[in-house]
């Protein structure tokens, strides 16, 4: 695989760290006026999902990770694997395990397109679109007349996720949710 030097570091760059594939989130150039330059990298370990920081000496190299992000449509789960299909017309299917799915299980919906990260050809992370529309499976009855201000209550989605919603929301309502924060945006 190719190597990247510190001056090529950028957000989204996939690299190997202690034999785990990682993705750079944030890069900071650090240099005292009269002193050595360093590059501080905030990264996500794509295997564990954990975020870490590591500093490199200016000019150091990292090994590129054989990682690819592709769009895939969610089909179904057999309980052990969650099956996705490529949207490039090949109809090729791949199964992601629970670890790869992680928190994204809260935002799963059939026929929705997800960003699947492949490492050595196998899914290691599944990222939900930024916004997703899901119905309310269970919540306290809506309060008539309360359309905007004041109060919130939990609503349970078919995926098992719980989100805080305004009091006027009813079971069966479609909700637009920001998957990055897990927050209710609006009714859809």
């Amino acid at each position, binding site marked *: 695989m190719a190597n990247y030097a510190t001056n090529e570091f950028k957000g989204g760059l996939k690299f190997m760290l202690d034999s785990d594939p990682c993705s750079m989130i944030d890069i900071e150039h650090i*240099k005292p*006026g009269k002193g*050595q330059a*360093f590059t501080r990298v905030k990264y996500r370990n794509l295997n564990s999902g954990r975020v870490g920081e590591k500093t490199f*000496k200016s000019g*150091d190299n990292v090994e590129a990770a054989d990682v690819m992000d592709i769009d895939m449509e969610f089909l179904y789960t057999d309980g052990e694997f969650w099956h996705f299909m490529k949207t490039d017309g090949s109809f090729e299917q791949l199964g992601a395990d629970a670890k790869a799915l992680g928190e994204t299980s809260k935002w799963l919906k059939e026929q929705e397109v997800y960003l699947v990260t492949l490492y050595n050809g196998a899914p290691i992370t599944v990222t939900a679109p930024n916004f997703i529309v899901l119905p309310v499976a269970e919540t306290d009855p809506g309060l008539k007349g309360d359309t905007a201000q004041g109060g919130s209550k939990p609503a349970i989605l078919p995926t098992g996720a719980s989100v805080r919603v305004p009091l006027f929301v009813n079971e069966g309502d479609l909700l637009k949710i920001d998957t990055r924060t897990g927050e209710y945006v609006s009714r859809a």
Partner: protein
Amino acid sequence: MLAVLNAKLKKRAELLAAARLFFACRGVLEVNTPVLAPAGSTDPLLDSFTTQLEGGSVASQTLYLQTSPEFYMKRLLAEGSGAIYQLGPCFRNGELSQRHNPEFLMLEWYRPDWDLAQLEAECCTLVDELLGEAPYARMTYKQAFIDFVGLDPFAASLADLRNACQACSAIDADQLDRDGCLDLLLSHQLEPALKGLERVILYEFPASQAALAQIHQDASGNQVASRFELYVKGLELANAYQELTLASEQAKRFAAGNAQRRALGKPEVIADTQLIAALEQGLPDCSGIALGFDRLIMLALGATCLDEVQTFSAYRW
């Protein structure tokens, strides 16, 4: 948007005018020296932009964009200019971040017959005038490391320094030398700790980090540079030296700089033999200081990024 632009242009213009008035009132002369020159800085940790002079009535040659106006200003001092200051652009290759831009505005001034304490007082007065008054904490490099990093930068073993680097930054520290470790600890542990302090004068740097400063012995017998740095809210703003005046020592440091550059696989830089000649003629005892003026504007405007205060930073070329 227009209001933001106007506010930043106006603040810059005001601060420049205030700095010029400050020096005019004190009899310090404004000078302009070349930013493009046939010799550059041999500092192994500074990279110059180079360009090629072609045509005209002189031979083709490599020219350097100056990383600071230091050499020409010292030549003026040696010629008897008296106290001088310069507000002008400096260029450093490979430096781009929230707090760096490859081209930036530097305020640099020299005080013949002044020692570092006098220059420090003047620097604080200037910063008080430009940013408003605030308390200054003075601490030696050594004490700051003991208090905020938890080790003595002179006494700690290289292994201890490397362990501390690894612990705070996950860096592969086995390649770092002593100064590399200290630079890392300074930027990862000390500077963040200084953020909580309004203004800090850090002084008595290790002799290995003297650059163009004189060297003396501190109270506990360590060789230290006659140098201080001003930090404002953790941002490195100014760097001052009791200037080296000995020609032979200057020549030695140029050669050492180029030797280190070779070791790092960097191109050598043509050393300024004119400066050596000027020092041989006699540079008056003097202290000098360089202050990053764009960073000062950042602080005045409460900005977090140079890009917010420069008209067109490299992010918006």
